[in-house]
């Protein structure tokens, strides 16, 4: 039995505790889901439960974290074979020294000093349980986000902990991979491993038949019933509008190969008209991000033709195309650099030629649309990860491009924040702007978009 009794935790340098008087038990083979909005303390609870806080990051812990009645105050490496932790940012979990996924997954068991035979067996078992044996010889740094997430979870499974803590384990996964992870976690629990899963996705917790507890402002509410889920609607591939609106994005026979000879796209024909709301869906690594990067000139097609507003992209600079297509990226940390949120949002708008009151108006409107008006003077890195994603969205909205393309805009967002993004898309559509989004979030796609383009292995399916 794993238990937290009256646990409060305060990060170093913070005046107030993030967790207060938390009581939680996890039995062997039990799955406990922790649900709650971003900033409620889910990730902190994961760090405390895994023994990383305060041992690795400092801070003050009061109360007791016990395993089979024994206080867990050991160093993290002493806990590693007992309690494992998979983080929400899988890329940062990679050891960074492995040449293959197999070596990456084997890294933990090797650290435990296990014999080679056992390390190999555990690694094969972990890869097999997630169905990713085919990734074994791939370089871990060249996987899609979802594949990296699976490798990160496999790396923890290979440690064979008695209790496994997972912080948003399906945040970056497509429906198929998500189902794979859900099945694997269920099997792990059936094998008597206790799981603590912090997750926005109540459907996942329902599939896992988890006992769900809710957290808000660092406090747990009494244990609740299993979350009630409903099946996610299947993506649909449909024909473009036959309206008379002009075509703003056209791809004719587009193919793209990366320099390492990876065939990302092959024979892609796409037509999107002004004012449409279109989702691009498909498995991790199916070429979705590559396709949208061809639209604003960040990538140039190996063959075929891409036209934006009737003009081929081949002869146009990215800076010029950025005034027509606003594109948000999956990782907001790759773009945030300014000292304040206001300055961050103003950057792209200023580059597009806005100035004076028009610029101020665009910045204010962008921040207000995503609900960050009160954070205008804050440093972007003082915001949580989900708010940083919304800030990146605001910075693209302020450019006021006729076409807005969003790459996984709801990744890591809680229910309220997802509703906020949906309302942003509705507002853009009402203003007659074209919205395209790459998303694995089937419910978001069904609720906010008129049609979907399904990509499979670099081709438009169907």
């Amino acid at each position, binding site marked *: 039995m794993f238990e937290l009794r009256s646990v409060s935790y305060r990060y170093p340098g913070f005046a107030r505790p993030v967790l207060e008087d938390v009581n939680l038990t996890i039995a062997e083979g039990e799955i406990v889901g922790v649900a709650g909005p971003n900033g409620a303390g889910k990730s902190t609870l994961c760090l405390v439960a895994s023994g*990383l806080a305060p041992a690795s990051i400092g801070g003050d812990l009061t109360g007791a974290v016990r395993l089979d009645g024994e206080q867990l105050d050991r160093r*993290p*490496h002493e806990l*590693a074979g007992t309690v494992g932790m998979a983080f929400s940012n899988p890329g940062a979990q990679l050891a960074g020294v492995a040449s293959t996924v197999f070596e990456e997954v084997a890294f933990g068991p090797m650290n435990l000093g296990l014999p080679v035979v056992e390390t190999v067996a555990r690694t094969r078992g972990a890869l097999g349980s997630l169905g990713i044996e085919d990734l074994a010889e791939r370089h871990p740094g060249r996987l899609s986000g979802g594949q990296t997430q699976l490798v990160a979870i496999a790396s923890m499974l290979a440690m064979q902990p008695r209790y496994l803590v997972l912080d948003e384990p399906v945040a970056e996964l497509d429906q198929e991979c998500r189902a794979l992870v859900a099945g694997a976690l269920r099997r792990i629990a059936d094998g008597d491993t206790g799981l603590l899963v912090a997750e926005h996705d109540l459907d996942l917790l329902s599939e896992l038949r988890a006992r769900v507890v809710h957290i808000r402002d660092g406090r747990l509410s009494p244990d609740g019933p299993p979350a009630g889920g409903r099946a996610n609607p299947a993506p649909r591939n449909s024909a473009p509008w036959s309206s008379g609106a002009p075509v703003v994005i056209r791809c004719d026979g587009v193919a793209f190969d990366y320099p390492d000879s990876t065939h990302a796209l092959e024979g892609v024909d796409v037509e999107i008209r002004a004012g449409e709301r279109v989702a691009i869906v498909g498995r991790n690594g199916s070429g979705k991000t590559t396709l949208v990067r061809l639209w604003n000139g960040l990538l140039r097609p190996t063959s075929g033709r891409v036209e934006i507003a009737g003009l081929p992209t081949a002869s146009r*600079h990215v800076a010029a195309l950025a005034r027509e297509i606003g594109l948000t990226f999956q990782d907001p940390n790759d773009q945030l650099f300014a000292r304040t949120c206001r300055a961050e949002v103003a950057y792209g708008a200023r580059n597009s030629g806005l100035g004076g009151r028009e610029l101020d108006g665009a910045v204010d409107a962008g921040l207000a649309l995503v609900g960050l008006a009160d954070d205008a003077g804050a440093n972007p890195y003082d915001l949580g990860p989900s708010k940083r994603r919304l800030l990146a969205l605001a910075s693209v909205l302020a450019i006021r491009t006729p076409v807005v393309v969003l790459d996984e805009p709801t990744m890591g967002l809680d229910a309220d924040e997802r509703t906020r993004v949906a309302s942003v898309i509705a507002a853009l559509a009402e203003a007659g702007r074209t919205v395209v989004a790459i998303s694995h979030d089937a419910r978001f796609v069904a609720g906010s978009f008129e049609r979907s383009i399904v990509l499979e292995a670099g081709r438009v399916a169907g």
Partner: protein
Amino acid sequence: MVAVAATVAIIIGGGYVVPAVVLGALVVPPAVVAGVLGRAVRWSVLVSLPIAIAVAIVSILGRAGATVLFTLGPFRATLEGVDYAAQIELRLLVLAMTLAVFGLTTEARALIADLQRRGVSPRLAFAAAATLDAVPAMAERARRIEAAQRARGLDTEGSVGARLRGAIPLVAPAVLGTLHDVEARSLALDARAFDHPGARHLLWTPADSSRQRLARWLLVLGLAAYVTGVAAGVLPRLP
């Protein structure tokens, strides 16, 4: 071992012959065999150029000598200064090439295995290997940042002035993101028992034939002879 021998040889000795021999015999052949000569040359020139320019200015105009080539205000450019600058810059280039070829041809896992085989602690071996892999990881991050900022109108295809203005939006996310990742990676390593004491049983060890061992011993002997020659004054040292 090749990188160590090449580095020591070019640091302690003078003249042009030894650095040229090191370049021709120890650095270029492995680069050619591994197919990384072009990348190694580009990287070396890029890294050593700023230092090379500074060395050239200071050495040529600041070093005393009997043969004055020309005067520039209060400064006199001397032939001795040119000779000194050329010797330093040849070393600089060979050193940069040596590091580049080492980085481009060494697998992190091979370095870890080799260091641990020689008794280096797993933590230190990991740190050395992570440094080796940090360069391509940083390059990948830089590509992602550049793409994100270009999508917001950063002009990397325009004038030099426009490109210079784009430096902060490119550099700041790289620095902040790296700091953020270091913290996250440190926690992830803790969770994967990185601090666990005791030996690791590695899955793979690099091949090490008797010929390779012989070559390493010959390099050690050659290096020892060279160091002795320089110390005895038989071989040239830097002026």
